[in-house]
């Protein structure tokens, strides 16, 4: 059985990537199970998708704890414990990372014993960010080696059709390009086998201790705890103000900002708190003078 985990952030197309891979395996005659896993749906929050594919019916379900392939669309997630990127990664796991750093750098940084490859570099335009999932799906399909190019393309047409013909074309272009770029890695992911039941270590079960309600109630007796969570790291796009176009009608952008992170200076110029701006881009949509621009997060930093 192939066991694949794809990690990314909401808005990068990871759920769709899982479905594309699932449909491509299915078209090749595999039994398939694919599923996204996320919390409250929101752009920028960590999520992952799992894909299982086998020649026999699949009875296991849920998290993949012994992945054959882990695809990381957003390298910042490697340092987020709750994202679980490294869970179960061992010497036989292949990792595909979307990064401008070299595979050797990642092997050293994360002490990885298995093989590491990087995804072809993403384009820095806005469409490119949303198509990261397409790149992941194309690259993963090539690495497993049992999905022909045409099946990948057919799966994309099937899964992305609802988003319109333009998205289908753009997804095809990115995914097939990634598929071609990874020709040298074709088939580098092998189907995994689980250890026999006799060889397993018993789980480290404990007796849950009784603790009185002063400790065990789910309360935080303090205000302002959301200050601790810098939700700005969820952003895949940032709104940037072009001050020469701003008419200082700050009431509009600051009122519509759902997170209340736009204030105004004494001159009425909007000020965005990037520590907490999630990049929803409502301000870009509502600005009557088109003074707010959406800039891809990484591209934005490079330009600054």
């Amino acid at each position, binding site marked *: 059985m192939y066991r694949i985990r794809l990690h990314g952030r909401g808005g990068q197309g990871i759920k769709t990537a899982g479905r594309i891979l*699932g449909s491509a395996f299915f078209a090749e005659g595999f039994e398939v199970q694919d*599923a996204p896993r996320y919390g409250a749906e929101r752009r920028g929050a960590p999520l992952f998708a799992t894909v299982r594919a086998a020649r026999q019916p699949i*009875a296991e379900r*849920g998290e993949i704890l012994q992945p054959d392939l882990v695809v990381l669309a957003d390298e910042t997630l490697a340092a987020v414990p709750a994202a679980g990127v490294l869970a179960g990664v061992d010497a036989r796991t292949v990792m595909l990372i979307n990064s401008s750093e070299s595979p050797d750098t990642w092997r050293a940084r994360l002490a990885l014993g298995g093989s590491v490859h990087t995804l072809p570099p993403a384009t820095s335009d806005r469409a490119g960010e949303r198509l990261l999932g397409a790149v992941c799906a194309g690259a993963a399909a090539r690495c497993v080696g049992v999905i022909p190019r045409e099946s990948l393309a057919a799966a994309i047409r099937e899964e992305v059709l609802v988003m319109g013909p333009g998205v289908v074309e753009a997804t095809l272009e990115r995914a097939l390009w990634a598929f071609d770029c990874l020709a040298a890695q074709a088939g580098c992911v092998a189907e995994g086998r689980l250890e026999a039941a006799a060889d397993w270590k018993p*789980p*480290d079960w404990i007796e*849950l201790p009784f603790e009185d309600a002063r400790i065990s109630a*789910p309360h935080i007796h*303090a205000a*302002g705890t959301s200050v601790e969570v810098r939700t700005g790291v969820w952003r895949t796009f940032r709104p940037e103000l072009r001050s020469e176009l701003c008419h200082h009608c700050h009431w509009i952008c600051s009122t519509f900002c759902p997170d209340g992170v736009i204030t105004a200076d004494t001159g009425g110029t909007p000020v965005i708190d990037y520590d907490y701006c999630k990049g929803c881009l409502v301000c870009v949509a509502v600005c009557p003078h088109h003074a707010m621009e959406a800039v891809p997060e990484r591209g934005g930093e490079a330009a600054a």
Partner: protein
Amino acid sequence: MRRTLLTGNAAAAWGARLAQVDYVPSFPITPQTEIIEWIGVWAESGEMEVRAVTVESEHAMITAAAAAAATGVRVFSATSSQGLLYAMEMLYAVAGWRAPFVLVNVSRGVATPVTLGSDHDDVFAARDSGFLQLHCATVQEVLDTVLIAYRLGEDPRVRLPVLVNLDGFYLSFTREPVWIPDADAVAGFLPSFDPENVRFRASEPISQAVAVLGGGAYSYFRYEMHLAAEQALTVYDEIADAFESALGRRHPAVETYRSDDAEVVFFMVGSFATKARAAVDRLRDAGIAVGLVRPRLLRPYPLSALRRALAHVRGVAVIDQNLSLGKGGVLHTELCSALYGQREAPVIASFIGGLGGRDIADEEFYEISAVTRKAAAEGSAPAPRLLYRESELREVRKLQRVARVERDELASGRKP
């Protein structure tokens, strides 16, 4: 008939579509929403000829569903978690109307604390409401069980609403290959509903669901519902046969997997049972005689079939994905009552696992089987066990420390 990849939610919607339901009142809640989204899409495109409406709450939704069912049309609805709990008053009320419809529950743990992860505390809260309750283990079963549920609830011997449960995430958002039957084949199994005397009409006054003052009349009506639910066991068996001949898949009231010669068995409901099935295969490879017994029906309780399935085993490991606070696992309690006093009854071990979507790992199934085999050999049941790892408590401790540090820092005025 075609085979394609569907999520559990899409399969539930396909069940409603193939049953040609007339009316779908709904209120969205994660993880159920995708079901009503699909029905909305098909209503809009004309692929489903249905009146689909969103109402102001789950309480109103169940009232609307049952009121429509009382006119004799076929009704479908779906909810989850707190939505089901909010509707609870009306679940009890409308079951007594004896007007059948199907309600899908996408199970999700209940507050507090709030979670999106799946367990069975929501749907088990409806256990005694008069709704029959069927539990699915695969996406295919979701589609098939919705069809079975209509035929079961609409049978004149039963005439009770039916809850079909699928697990959030593990089925709701998980795609698996599913046979979607042709409409003709479905029509052969599930003809349109002949409501007979279930026909509330405008300008034709009848009194339905009347009040009775006096325990004798009340007892009559309540106990008749109980008898109808028990009757549903016989009816279910007939329907399972009919489903197999019409659509080719067999869904008996109790699934038994490699249990005939098993020394101990896993006993559970829902989608985690397929994980147990995988564990059974690997334990068998290691030479350990383990099996699985899974009731599809929780209500009515398939008492005789369970006694038969467990007659020869020495130990049963009940895995409850629910918790009756202050008592323990509901499946465990019920199985103990079912087997008490039976000759050579097996030792029954209780495991609580999978609360709030917590996964159960392969090695935990192996350990459960080892603990249960030991208990069976010694002839005495172990204390109930929460499946909980040291690493999980360590994570909780980390959160508690963060909360405490913040509290201390805020108290000392070092932060806003």
